[in-house]
């Protein structure tokens, strides 16, 4: 067995930090005077804003207030990544996803060895499984709701705004509190249960050509990948195209058997 030269996990952390800092800078820019003259509100840099304003744009020719045409470019970029590598945007480029990973990591460090028996919580399957469908319902509700609203339907309680926009309302404070508490208790709480952008990207895991492939002959079912999976996917080697997978590659990074999991371009 040869040692792996560098860790994908480290590369991911660097990119995630850049995503968080980048989103924070957009938030800072948002609270500075003259925002309107600089070409776009905070919301206009959001990929999901493109989904929220898509139907009004197609049907009426207008985008919702606080969004703008730039939302479509960010959405196209996100869909482009999804077409190539599935939900890799969620695992690598999303500032909110990154923050949840950081919160989980900090919680583990804070609690030390005891954390493994306390946090993160593993919700019982009877709760976890139906709750995972909530994000699809939220996506549907937002798509329909966008036809009847002036502002994007998620705007008032969007966790991205709550964390990064720096223009807080009582509802956003509440969202922030729920988001942080949820992230401490359950790994990738928002991604697992409520993120409508993740719901929209989930289907791409089934069709994206860049994906992990498992070799059953080499896998010894040690379960290390199951433990590392922040999305709580069970039996990872046989569920590599699972809609919940955020393509973080932690399973590949943790796998001790060379060739058991491989990154491939499937044609």
């Amino acid at each position, binding site marked *: 067995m040869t040692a792996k*030269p*560098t860790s*994908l996990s480290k*590369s*991911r952390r660097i*990119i995630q930090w850049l995503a968080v800092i980048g989103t924070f800078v957009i938030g800072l820019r948002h609270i500075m005077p003259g*925002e*309107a*003259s600089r*070409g*776009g*509100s905070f*919301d*206009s840099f959001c990929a999901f804003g493109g989904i929220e*304003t898509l139907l009004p*744009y*197609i*049907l*009426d*020719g*207008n*985008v*919702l*207030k*606080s*969004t*703008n*045409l*730039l*939302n*479509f*470019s*960010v*959405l*196209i*970029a*996100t*869909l*482009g*990544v999804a077409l*190539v*590598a599935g939900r*890799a*945007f969620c695992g*690598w*480029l999303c500032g909110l996803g990154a923050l949840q990973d950081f919160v989980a990591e900090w919680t583990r460090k804070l609690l030390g060895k005891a954390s493994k028996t306390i946090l993160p919580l593993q919700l019982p399957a009877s709760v976890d499984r139906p709750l995972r469908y909530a994000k699809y319902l939220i996506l549907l509700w937002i798509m329909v709701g966008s036809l009847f609203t002036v502002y994007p339907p998620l705007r008032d309680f969007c966790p991205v705004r709550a964390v990064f926009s720096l223009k807080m309302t009582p509802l956003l404070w509440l969202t922030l509190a729920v988001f942080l508490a949820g992230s401490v208790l359950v790994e990738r709480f928002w991604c697992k249960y409520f993120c409508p952008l993740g719901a929209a990207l989930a289907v791409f895991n089934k069709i994206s050509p*860049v994906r992990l492939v498992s070799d059953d002959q080499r896998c010894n079912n040690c379960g290390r990948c199951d433990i590392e999976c922040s999305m709580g996917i069970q039996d990872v080697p046989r569920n590599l195209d699972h809609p919940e997978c955020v393509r973080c*590659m932690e399973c*590949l990074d943790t796998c001790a058997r060379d060739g058991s999991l*491989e*990154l*491939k*371009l499937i*044609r």
Partner: protein
Amino acid sequence: MKINPHYYPYIILTTYVIFLLLGILLGFGPERGGEGGEHGLLLAMEACV
């Protein structure tokens, strides 16, 4: 075809940038004012027709 996992971050970042530029080239660029404008697909199609 096997891909070296160390290229994975570059694949993601490059794809994101390429598609972002594509979106901007298609005309979905930032607008002054930050609020919605009347530049819809239907209006664009009408203009073409």
